[in-house]
């Protein structure tokens, strides 16, 4: 199943190896779930600490949470529009926060120090299963958003300015999740690989700027994913006249 265009001759670099968990007859990538639980736990801890005692004059973590809330609201509002953004803000925000914390967690936490029987811990978003799951959720959401808001008139969108657009719009429904998932997966995995290779080749100084670049890429990828998800939903709920 696995496939890589070239092979890294380093024993330390484990690409495409997974810690398998067996759940009934389901196979799971354990390392992905472990890190995702840490990410979710960190997010929930932050949220619980920040919202425990909220006041009109914000203090401490509440400031950070309100900043995030405002940022996400602006993102959702500009992409989805004034009418429908409230319904979709939690979803867009969760995507953004989950991807952002996953990416930065993968880049900042020295997971390598924890040894697993097989595979290694890293950003959950560096696993194709996660990114495809997120992208499919986005696809479902924009279909649901369009259908629930406009009913069957949603499909007018496919022939919107002219019926010539029909095949392109149908293809778009497949390319949207594909590009969403592969963009995120590729960027995060590539970043991890570049850092790992550089650390292996030149363990001092040189990887540091690349790590900073990785942090930048990680943040940008979270923003891109959330923005595109919001844009797709906005496109689906938009009224054509």
């Amino acid at each position, binding site marked *: 199943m*696995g496939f890589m265009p070239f092979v890294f001759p380093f024993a330390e670099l484990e690409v495409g*190896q997974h810690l398998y968990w067996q759940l009934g007859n389901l196979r799971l990538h354990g390392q992905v779930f472990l890190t995702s639980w840490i990410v979710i736990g960190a997010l929930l801890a932050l949220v619980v600490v920040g919202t425990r005692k909220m006041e009109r004059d914000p203090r401490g973590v509440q400031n950070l949470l309100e900043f995030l809330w405002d940022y996400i609201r602006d993102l959702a509002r500009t992409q989805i529009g004034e009418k429908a953004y409230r319904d979709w803000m939690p979803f867009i925000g969760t995507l953004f926060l989950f991807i952002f914390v996953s990416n930065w967690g993968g880049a900042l936490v020295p997971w390598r120090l924890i040894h697993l029987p097989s595979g290694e811990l890293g950003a959950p978003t560096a696993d194709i299963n996660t990114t495809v799951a997120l992208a499919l959720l986005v696809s479902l959401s924009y279909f649901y958003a369009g259908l629930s808001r406009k009913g069957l008139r949603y499909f007018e969108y496919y022939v919107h300015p002219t019926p010539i657009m029909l095949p392109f719009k149908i293809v778009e429904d497949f390319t949207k999740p594909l590009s969403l998932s592969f963009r995120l997966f590729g960027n995060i*995995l590539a970043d991890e690989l570049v850092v790992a290779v550089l650390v292996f080749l030149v363990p001092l100084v040189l990887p540091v700027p690349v790590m900073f670049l990785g942090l930048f890429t990680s943040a940008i990828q979270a923003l891109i994913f959330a923005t595109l998800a919001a844009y797709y939903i906005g496109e689906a709920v938009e009224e054509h006249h």
Partner: protein
Amino acid sequence: MTSLLLFGATEGGLFDFDATLPLMALQVVLLTFILNSLFFRPVGRVVEERESYVTLTRSEAKRKLEEVKSLEDDLKHQLKSARQAAQKLISDAEQDSDKLYREALTLATNEANALREKARKDIDSQRDNAFDQLRADAEKLGDLIVDRLLAAK
């Protein structure tokens, strides 16, 4: 070993889809609902409450400012009219006192004039009397002298 897993093995690899995918999706959906109730809704409520509070306070402040401005205008107006009234009062009083002064002055002058006139008249009449007396005396004396002279002859 690695390369074996990457290429030839039946399991593993970068594009190894399995039950991770639906479970992760489920996890994210759950996270969405949890974050909605723990984060988005409460924080949104606080932020929107604050926004409405700020709008309310701002409009209140604007209203108060308007009130203050109108009060200020009113007071300025009152001050102006009071100043005018005071000015008028002062000038009235000045005119009054001036009139009184003039009246008193003319009264006093008249009185003085009358007194002077009376005094002059008194003097005149006394002088006339004295002249008359003197004339009478002189005539009597003249007569006496004439009589004596005539008698001596």
